[in-house]
């Protein structure tokens, strides 16, 4: 299929970029992994995003902050291609999402994008390792190979001993670690995290954030974090603030 081939090319380009990065190639010209140009989205009659412009480079950690109801989660969902932009352009890993079908957007998300949501959103009937393997299984990987890769990631996020525990029986912190492993198991180029620490206490939240940003940083993965937590935002390279669906402010935090 044509689009499948295109997606595969994009995937390879990303891998190549990551390979050449440490050698000095491509470091001078940061590659944009996400571009939002004049993006608008409205729920029935309520506008959630009004002409949002955003640019995220490879390996960059960006925090999207703002008060409740300002459109942070909508921004993340539109940027990840979960919701289609109603106006404007969303370019993710070089692909214009507005030109892709839902199935093509899903394929892109599955292979090159990680997603972490507030409550983990794990499938409760599946074991931790199966939840992590899910994007790989849905992408057609053989079950044994996918589970081995997932188990490796569970070890990396520190809960290898819980691999066979049902998601429904995991604690909030463990669920979020599984969600982080699931987001990174495909070795994506960008991870979107929607209030990833929102259901955790301060210490647990900070630990999870370090895990997510640390693991992503090791692989040169860009991270877009939606948060209302000032401490979480401070851990990002850059903070953008939304107010009533508009980009209100952008500043470097580090």
């Amino acid at each position, binding site marked *: 299929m044509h689009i499948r081939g295109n997606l595969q090319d994009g995937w390879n380009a990303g891998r190549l970029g990551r390979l050449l990065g440490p050698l000095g190639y491509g470091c001078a010209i940061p590659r944009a992994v996400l571009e939002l140009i004049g993006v608008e989205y409205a729920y029935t009659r309520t506008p959630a995003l009004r002409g949002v412009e955003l640019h995220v480079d490879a390996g960059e950690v960006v925090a999207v902050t703002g008060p409740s109801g300002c459109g942070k*989660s909508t921004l993340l969902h539109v940027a990840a291609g979960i919701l289609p932009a109603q106006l404007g352009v969303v370019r993710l890993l070089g692909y214009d999402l507005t030109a892709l079908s*839902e*199935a093509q957007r899903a394929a892109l998300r599955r292979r090159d994008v990680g997603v972490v949501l507030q409550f983990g959103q794990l499938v*409760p009937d*599946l074991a931790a390792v199966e939840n992590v393997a899910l994007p790989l299984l*849905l992408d057609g990987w053989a079950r044994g190979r996918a589970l081995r890769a997932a188990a490796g990631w569970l070890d990396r996020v520190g809960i290898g001993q819980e691999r066979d525990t049902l998601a*429904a029986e995991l604690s909030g912190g463990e669920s979020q670690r599984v969600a982080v492993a699931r987001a990174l198991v495909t070795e994506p180029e960008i991870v979107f995290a929607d209030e990833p620490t929102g259901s955790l206490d301060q210490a647990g939240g900070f630990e999870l954030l370090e895990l997510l940003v640390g693991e992503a940083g090791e692989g040169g993965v860009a991270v877009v974090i939606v948060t209302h937590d000032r401490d979480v935002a401070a851990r990002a390279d850059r903070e953008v603030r939304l107010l009533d669906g508009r980009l209100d402010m952008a500043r470097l935090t580090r």
Partner: protein
Amino acid sequence: MKVTTTIRLARSAADAERRRTAIIAGSIALAGQLLLFALHVARGSSADGLVSYVTEDDLQLGVIVGALLLIVPVLALTVQALRTASVARDQRLAALRLAGATPGQLRAIAAAQAGWAAALGAVLAAPAYLVFWIAAGVLPPSGARLVAVPDAADVVTWLALIPVLTVCGTGAGALLRERGGGTSARPGAANAAALIAGALLVVVSMASYVDSESNVGLLIAIVGLLVFAFAAGPRLVLAAARALERRPDTESLLAARRLRADPRTAGRVAAVLMVCGVALGFQALYAYETLNFEYEWAAQDLGFYVGGLGLSVAVVVAGAAVAVFSLVLNAIEHLVAARRPLATLAVFGLDERGLGRVLVRQLLATVVPAVALGAALGNVVLFSLISVAIGAWPPADELLGPALLGLAAAVVAALLLALVARLAVRLLRPLVRAAIAPENLRAA
């Protein structure tokens, strides 16, 4: 808390709660109507125009047992309906708890909700019985009618049933609230004991029934079969789930894990379908014997036997239909309750069709093995019964015909149920679409 306050708080305007009330009331009305019919037949009737099954002493028992057996899937449906709308109800009860309601008060509110639906159903049993009377007691030609004109005794029975059904419904509502919606417990020692006891009851009572003039042995065998089927149901579902799990595709894995997470709900349906399968196995042999051209039936006799067969097949089909509806209701409940994890699956590319395939595999893994096993058991039990009766295993040439007919009936039934499952999932498509909608990712 005053009774009026309890009733006021029990009433909910939510669509899900209204649907739940309607299904509980409908199933209780159906159970009440079947009870009214069974009790009417048990009282005996000599009215003109009725079919001999309900007028002759020897045959009445079969009709009564058929009606009572049909109540079993209806009650399973009631239990399933009581478990539905759990998300909306839990949110409502949580809000009441925050407002200061005690556990006892919450239990009273849950009981009042179920009690109101049960009372409504009990009252509706009479109109349901009248509709049944028109369909089976007025419209058929004279001589083929099943239901006599309702009389004063029916009214008295109905009035007596109203409080009984209401109390049962109220108790079940309170009990299920107490135990919660989870049914994940694996079959344990009690289940194994029930399985063995049920099988022994069937074998012993059927063996003694062959030499007996009384029908008591047959009734005990039916009770034994029900005990066996309801104990075997969850085990059969778990076995089907394990077989599904071994398939390489992700949809099968998801379907298998859903079944393993709640084997009892699907197990109840599997039990009913297993009993339907056993009946199918019996009916296949009965049909083979009746339609065997070696016999020279008079037209009237043939009509009697074929009519009886048709009636028993109708009971089996109705039972299976109620059971499958109950299973679909469970699937709907899951789609509503698990919309957040389902939406997450959509993020990773499991689309509406993929989720539809998960549901179809789930339904098929429950219904097909149950019917197949039931039909096989029906044939084996009946052949064993015949061998006990004649003192030897029937010759091979006499076994082949009924066995093939039984197999054909089981295959046709399994295919029909598979078709129904696919159709049900197609009808559920809007709910499937709603379950994987991205906005669910934000649901609390």
